């Protein structure tokens, strides 16, 4: 019975294993970037999920301001917590790749700046949450901040890297709007994107369930 409800978790384990094998054995090295480009199968999905988590958090925050119900706040903060993990992973993988290809772990390329700011925003969000004592007020102020921060992100992620020069390759969202990927690379990339998104969904559900249970237990005490 447990297997029936959780079949997708086993499936995900197998899927990710295949993706890892495929990323190293099946996909060809990218033109110009060589073997190091294989990191894109992990780096890009992780960065994309950091942004998605942030989007979910901002949407839940907007919903909270419209209808102040506890569940929306739980959604917003849970998604932000998982987003923080993914943003950290994106920063670390990106930094390792930068060392290999640009000879330095960190050189404030506009892309590096934007992911760093995403990290700062997440950190500020949690700093704000920990500095407010009353629950309703905490949820309300955090929601407002999350929305402000979310409006800032397009400036940092989309506008600034295009106005000032960046060395970062962006094969998917480039100015010409063309996908410059080999067919086999694209298969693995999309598969990895799917796998990571499912993983994110799983983590988010776990986080939300824990927060809900905690809420129930706290109410029992009173």
């Amino acid at each position, binding site marked *: 019975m447990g297997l029936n409800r959780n079949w997708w978790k086993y499936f995900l384990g197998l899927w990710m294993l295949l993706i890892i094998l495929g990323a190293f054995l099946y996909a060809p090295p990218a033109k110009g970037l060589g073997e190091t480009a294989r990191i894109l199968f992990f780096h890009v999905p992780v960065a994309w999920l950091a942004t998605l988590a942030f989007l979910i958090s901002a949407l839940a925050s907007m919903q909270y*301001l419209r209808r102040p119900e506890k569940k929306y706040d739980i959604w917003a903060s849970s998604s932000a917590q998982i987003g923080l993990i993914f943003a950290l992973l994106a920063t670390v993988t990106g930094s390792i790749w930068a060392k290999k290809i640009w000879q330095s772990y960190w050189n404030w390329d506009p892309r590096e*700046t934007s992911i760093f*700011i995403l990290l*700062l*925003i997440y*950190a*500020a969000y949690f*700093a*704000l949450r920990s*500095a*407010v*004592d009353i629950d309703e*007020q905490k949820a*309300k*102020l955090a*929601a*407002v*901040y999350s*929305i*402000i*921060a979310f*409006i*800032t992100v397009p*400036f*940092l992620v989309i*506008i*600034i890297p295009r*106005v*000032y020069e960046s060395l970062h390759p962006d094969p998917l969202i480039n100015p010409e709007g063309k996908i410059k990927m080999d067919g086999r690379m694209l298969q693995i990339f999309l598969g990895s994107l799917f796998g990571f998104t499912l993983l994110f969904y799983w983590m988010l559900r776990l986080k939300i369930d824990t927060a809900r249970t905690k809420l129930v237990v706290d109410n029992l005490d009173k």
Partner: protein
Amino acid sequence: MLLVRNAYIIFLKDFHLEFRSRYALNAIFLFAITTLTAISFSIGPLRLKSEILSPLLWIILFFSAMSGLSHIFVREEEQQTADTLRLVTSANAVFLGKWIFNMVLLFSLELFILPIYLAMLGVSVGNFRVFLFIILLGSFGLASVATLIAAIISQASAKGALFAVLSFPISLPLLISGIHGTRLALDGGTLAECLPDLQILFSFSIVIITLSLLLFEFIWRK
């Protein structure tokens, strides 16, 4: 226009209060002077390039703003006058009044600190009109961000530390394009060359003000 009239009254109230205590005024002016002196003292007779001069100016401006611009809302909470203000007038009138006050405060700081900065560090400005234009638009945005974040942190504990932490990621698009534009202007860049920076500064400021007018109600009402 009741809103504008009320906002003006709020502004006058804060203006009179400020001149009675001069708290924010002292904080922000002395902070700017101290920082500028520390910089000037440590570099001695060296002539700095515009790549360094421009960020130094924005660091001074940003942290001076952070030292005083939160006072406008923090004072209302500390002296427990916020509730009366909530009863007397609409949220947006309060925001606009305080936003104008912060802008006046920041502009008067610049009127005072810019000549000293130019003289102490021996800066020669290539294109003075564009330079002023960038500073003006940049501080317009900075005052807007600071006022909005000040409203948030006035309801949290550990206000001082939180203000800079929350404001920094949000004002980064301003700082990046402000620093870039100032550097160009110091080197004698024309208006056309600095246009992308001015566009980012302007559009970002407008976005923040619009967002403030939409969100301030939620921060302000209890």
